[in-house]
Every structure is written in structure tokens, then in C-alpha cells.
């Protein structure tokens, strides 16, 4: 019997593939798929703090409530503006730095890559608190610098018009380490022979960038674009740790709104519907990115 099992399964690589996959699948099912499915079910239920033990199905009512709520659309606008502010710079800054680093010798490159990546390993809370101090409107480093330069001090995250831009600025200053690593690795993979051939043909550096570097970096750019869009639509830390969604809801991102709806208002069903809508939006935007960028990607 054992021999039969052994003959049929033990030496079958598919068997072992499934065994190893099963561990990951079980993990994902427990901590990813189950909560996701549960969240979708909640989104069709009237479930609140007061009746958490006794939820009941109400069809699409939660979705209708969310989609007819002007505050939801305000948060969509804030998240979209944040995405527009963050994503392009999330490509331009790391790409520029990586291109600059490419001119240095390896040890220097490695030092700067580590230095740029360092903020990524710092706890989000520490990072937020540091940035909060830098941009403190009353006693922050930036306003001290502005005063020193004779410039008018700013309200930064305390201004209704400035708060969103301040959070975008904080992102520009602090979150490019990983993308720099990606771009640096991608640049290293571009064959030197292509540049040498272009040089022989007297191509300018600008032309070399557009004809060689940029097309060959497109898979990396697509990846950075999609992860940045997803990340910025799911922005939360800045609003939670620094502005609390304010002032006057100026930084109330979608994720922060979901948090408030869930924890502050105790409206779990509505918060779940919001989460599902956010997920659909992220999928739609990602597909759009694939559609636009994916067709031109040269692998």
C-alpha cells in the first residue's frame, strides 16, 4: 500500500508542489481570502456596533448610502488629488536619483541606495512624528528655515488649503527608497552595448534616454506606477498620525474615511461597502494603467 502511495505521489513533483502551495494557500485563506469574503458579506448587511451579534441582509442599501453621500465623493476627490500629486513624483524622483547614482562607482551607489532606503525601515509612526515636527506650523524646522531665509512662514498641515499639499510634500521627501532600488537594479540590467552603439551613432544623452533607457525601464515603471497608485489610494498614515483627516476634512482620504466610519461611527456594514468600492476603484485604475502602459512594455 505504502509502496503504491510512494510510487504514485511521493516522486510526483505536482504532489509536492501542492503540498508546499497548501501552506501558503491555507495562510492566504485564513488571513486574506476569509476576511475579504467576510468584508464583502458585511457590505450587504446592516451591521453596527449596537447590533453586531444580529446582522441582517439589506441588499445594496449600504452601497447606495455610500454612493449618495457627498462626504464619500469628497474623500474620493482628496484621494485622487493625493494620487495625482504623489504618483508622478514617485516615478520622477527615484528615476532621476537612480540615473544620477548610475554615474558613480559601485560603493558610492550602494551607500546612497542604503541611505535612501533607510527611511523605509523606520517605523511609520516615527516617520510621521519626525515629519510632523519638521512641518510644525508653530515651532517646526521648515518655518524656522523660512524665517531664516526671510520667507513668510506657512501653516503647513494646519491650513485648510495647505494640508493636502503638505502631506504630498512629506511623501516626496520620505518614500522613494524602494523605488530607487528597483530603478537602480533595472538600470543595471540594461546592456551597455546598446549605449555604446548609440554613442557610435552620435546620439545625444537625451535621445539615448528616450530611445534606450525609458523603453527598457517600462516594466519597472509599470510596476512602480501600479504599486504607487494602489499605495496612494490607500494612504492613511499621514491623515491618521498628523492631520486626523483635517482641518475641515482637507486630508480625509478614502482609507481614513473607512476607518472613521468603522471605528468612530461603528457602522461596520457601510465601512465594508466603502472598502469594497475602494478595492474596485483600485482594480479599475490598475487595469487602466496596464491598458495604457502595458501595451508598450518591452520585456
Amino acid at each position, binding site marked *: 500500500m505504502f509502496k503504491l502511495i510512494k510510487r504514485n505521489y511521493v516522486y510526483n513533483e505536482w504532489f509536492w508542489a501542492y503540498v508546499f502551495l497548501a501552506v501558503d494557500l491555507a495562510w492566504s485563506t485564513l488571513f486574506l481570502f476569509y476576511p475579504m469574503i467576510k468584508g464583502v458579506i458585511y457590505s450587504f448587511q446592516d451591521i453596527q456596533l449596537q447590533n453586531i451579534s444580529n446582522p441582517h441582509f439589506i441588499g445594496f442599501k449600504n452601497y447606495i448610502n455610500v454612493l449618495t453621500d457627498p462626504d464619500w465623493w469628497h474623500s474620493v476627490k482628496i484621494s485622487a488629488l493625493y494620487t495625482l500629486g504623489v504618483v508622478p513624483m514617485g516615478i520622477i524622483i527615484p528615476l532621476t536619483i537612480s540615473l544620477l547614482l548610475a554615474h558613480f562607482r559601485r560603493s558610492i551607489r550602494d551607500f546612497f541606495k542604503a541611505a535612501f532606503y533607510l527611511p523605509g525601515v523606520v517605523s511609520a509612526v516615527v516617520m510621521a512624528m519626525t515629519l510632523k515636527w519638521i512641518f510644525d506650523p508653530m515651532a517646526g524646522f521648515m518655518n524656522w528655515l523660512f524665517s531664516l531665509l526671510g520667507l513668510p512662514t506657512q501653516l503647513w498641515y494646519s491650513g*485648510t488649503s495647505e494640508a493636502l499639499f503638505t502631506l504630498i510634500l512629506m511623501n516626496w521627501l520620505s518614500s522613494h527608497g524602494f523605488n530607487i532600488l528597483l530603478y537602480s537594479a533595472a538600470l543595471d540590467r540594461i546592456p551597455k552595448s546598446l549605449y555604446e552603439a548609440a554613442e557610435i551613432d552620435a546620439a545625444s544623452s537625451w535621445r539615448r534616454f528616450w530611445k534606450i533607457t525609458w523603453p527598457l525601464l517600462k516594466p519597472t515603471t509599470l510596476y512602480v506606477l501600479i504599486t504607487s497608485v494602489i499605495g496612494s489610494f490607500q494612504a492613511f498614515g499621514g491623515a491618521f498620525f498628523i492631520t486626523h483627516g*483635517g*482641518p475641515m476634512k482637507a486630508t480625509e482620504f478614502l482609507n481614513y474615511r473607512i476607518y472613521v466610519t468603522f471605528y468612530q461611527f461603528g457602522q461596520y456594514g457601510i465601512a465594508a461597502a466603502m472598502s469594497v468600492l475602494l478595492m474596485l476603484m483600485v482594480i479599475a485604475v490598475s487595469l487602466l494603467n496596464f491598458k495604457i502602459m502595458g501595451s508598450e512594455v518591452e520585456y
Partner: protein
Amino acid sequence: MKRSLGIVVALLLALVIMSSALVFASTDTITALLPFRPNTPFGAYLGQVFNLFEQTHPGVKVKWISGGSWGDYIKKLGTMLGARQGPDVAYGNANYLFVPGRGAGLASADSLTIPDKYFTKDERLGMGAAVIGSLSIPGRGIVVWPWHLYIGGISTMIANEDMLREAGFDPNNIRKNGWTTKQFLELGSKVVKDLNGDGKPDRWLFYPVNSDHMRIGIFPIYLSKKRPLEEQWTLDYFFDTRTGKLKDPELLHQAFQYLYDLVHKYKYAPAAAVSKSMGDASDAFLRGELAFVANGPDYLSTVKEHNRLVLEGLRKGKVIHAGVIPMPYLDAPDHEAIRPGLAVYGFYNFKQNPYKGDEHTKHVMEFCDFITNITFQPILAAEGFMSPDRRLFATRYAMAANLYNTNDPSIRYWLNDMRNNALPSFSQYACVGFTKAFRDAKGKWFGDSFIPALEGMIAGKLSADEAFNRVKVAAEKLPYPRVNKDKLPAIIKSINQLVEEEKEESKMFK
């Protein structure tokens, strides 16, 4: 040989597994949800008490579930209870713990410097009864002991008394006689200063941050109006429980204007602080940059710790003399001093749902008894909690009164009363009185309209008129019907009955 070795290993393994299973099976775990962090002085003390309990009660473990901030703590507790996974013991006052009883009522002010002026004779006499009243709630387990008196942050502020004295105000006099918003403004003119000569103030009256902007800016005007007792006790500050409409819109408008003036006209509070947190305000207070924060009296222990660190050279800064000061009130004929509300805090033992068995209940009761043991009395007294005699009384008679079957007539009266009449508190009545749709909507109104309008006004984006109009218009849009009319007569009847009972009961303690 190999076979023998295999048998020995198998037996040893089986023994280990069986003994582990036995140990596991014989360990009963008591879950305690607490808002204290173990690294705070009181948290460390409680940790020691819990360890001692475990040592003296083999087989019983205490699982400390940390609740985080107060807000997170309450949310966590609600979620746990809703999911039928409530802790055995939680800390808090009755209202916080969702108890449909009259807990968290006025407590004995013996250990606090609350002047007589804020309480009527009957109320003072009734305080003893209210303390006991908060102890035993039928059908929902018991509150173990009222060991921590807490002055409601909504009606008081923590003041830097050095600044008050420097400005010519006597904190004791304010506590004794109260003070008006006019005096508060006068204080502002003396406290707010540019100390380093850079043309900008370095000292402020307060930070207009969540929720100090409400407590120091709005409530002095809005809450000082004389109102019927049941309206004062409903705890719904903005909506009339009889009609569901915004109560006193003109007064609320005036309160908005008052806060606007504090920030923009007088510049006693910095507009740039609008996005700061209450933690920032508390830190600024310790740095000596603020005259007031709207914290509760527990913050005084933080100040005390700050002073210790400063005196021992472990922290830079100045020693700060802080104290609880009542909120100022509007100096107008139909207004009166806002009475500081006192809440009784204790450990609350929940009715088990589902029931975890007699053995577990016994352990929980032992645990409750243990943490109220007189052994720990000096430590509690040193920490400024309630006086020993009262605690002992509360523990032995009130805490376990329904277990001890006491013959004390007053206790028996309370027991019977509590056991037989599960009367919700006024705030609970208010919740029942409003329709569910309105309750949901008004919570959202506060978060989505009220606070943003207030922040917009503080940030200088909106005038007081504009901010108030936004709030008013949003309130008018809330759904109707707002009041559950079928229940309203019974609710009002019960409220009046409770008021009468309160009077009756207070007589028992004369």
C-alpha cells in the same frame, strides 16, 4: 536496543503531551481589559497585583488585554461584547461600560476640592447612595468597587496654577466661587505673552484642538444655561430629547462666536494648532506653554511625574503646579455655574454570555475580591484614590452584596432596588428616545459637519456665522422622525420617577 529506545522516547513524549494537556486543562484564564499601559506607574502596580493573584491562586491566570487610548479602549470593549467575547473584568465607569443602570452618577466629593456651591444639599447627601448605586447592576454582572473618582473632563479643565497666580487669579477662589467667561478673557489678556521677544506669543490660554476646542470654547457658553434636570442628564448636548431638534441654536451660535473671538479676535489660542492632537496640547502644557488643557484629573499624575523628573534632573523644564478648575460660565441672567460632574470608576464584571461555568465564576469573584483586598490599600491611598474606609465599605458590602446576603437595611434596599428595577440612566433613555435612523445620522453629523465646521472656523477659513450656519443646515437635514414618540411618555415618566427616587434615596443617608 533501538526498539527499547523508541518505546522510551514515545512514552516520554506521551508524558510531556499529557502533562501539558493537564496543565492546559487545569488553567483557568481570567481576561481583564484595561486602558492602562503596563509601563505607567499605575499599570505597573496593577501588574504586580495580578502577578500576586496568580501566585496565590495556582491554576488561574490573568490575561491583561491592553485597550490603548480611551477611545480605542471603549471601541474594543464594544466590539468584544458585541461579538460575545467580552472580557471577564473591564475598567471604567458604568456609562462607558454600556450599563443600563444609573452608574457614573455623582460620587462623594470628599477627596476632591469641589466647593459646596456646585451641589445642592440633597445632592451631596445623595452622593453616598449614588456611589452604591453604581455598584450593582442587575442582570449584567457587578461593578466591583468605586475606587477612582473622576471629575468629568467636560465640565472642568486642568490649569497651570502658577500662571493663574501670576495673573492675579487665585485658583482656590475660582474653585470655591466659580468664574465667568469675562474673567476667563481677562486672564487671557495677562497670560498670553511673547516671552522671547520675537513678536509671536509663546504662551497661550489653550490649544484649540480636538476636543479642547469644544470643552474650553463651546461648552462654557452652551452648557451653562439653566436647564431642567432631565435635560442636563441626557448627555445629548445638542439635540432636544423631546423634539429631536437642535436645542438653543442661538446659544450655539453665540458659543461659535466666543470660540472664534478667542482664536481670531483676542488671539488667546493659536489657529495654527488646529491640526494638533490632545497629546500635543498635553505636552505643550508640560512645557509651560499653555494655561489650560481639557484633560481629566488623571492627567495630574502625568504632571506629578513630570515634576519628579524635572526635580531629579532627568528632564529639562520647569516644575508645574497644576489643578482642576471648573469651566467658566456665561455671565448672563439665565446662566449658572457648570457643576463638575463626578464619575465613579471601578472594575466591571460582565455577565458571562455564554456562561463559562461555576468554577470560572468562582475564580473571577476571587479575583475581584483580591484586587479589592485591603493589603493594597496604602498603595491606592498613596495614589490618591478613594479613602480606605469607603473602599472597604464598597468592597465588602456593595461589591459582593448579592453574594454576602447582608442584613444592612440600606444595602438591602439598594440591592432589591437594583435587582428588580433595571432602570436605564438618563443618557440611555435619550438613546432609546431617538429613532435609530436619527441616532446613526446625528453621530455622522457631529463627525462630518460639526467638527469640520469648527476646524474651518479655527483655521480662519470660515467666519463664526458661516461655521454655525453649516452646522445648523446640516442638522436640519437629518432624517425625521427623530423621536420615538411611542416610547417618549414612558421615558419622561421614568425620568421623573428616577428624579423622585433620587430624592427619596438621599433621605436614607441623612
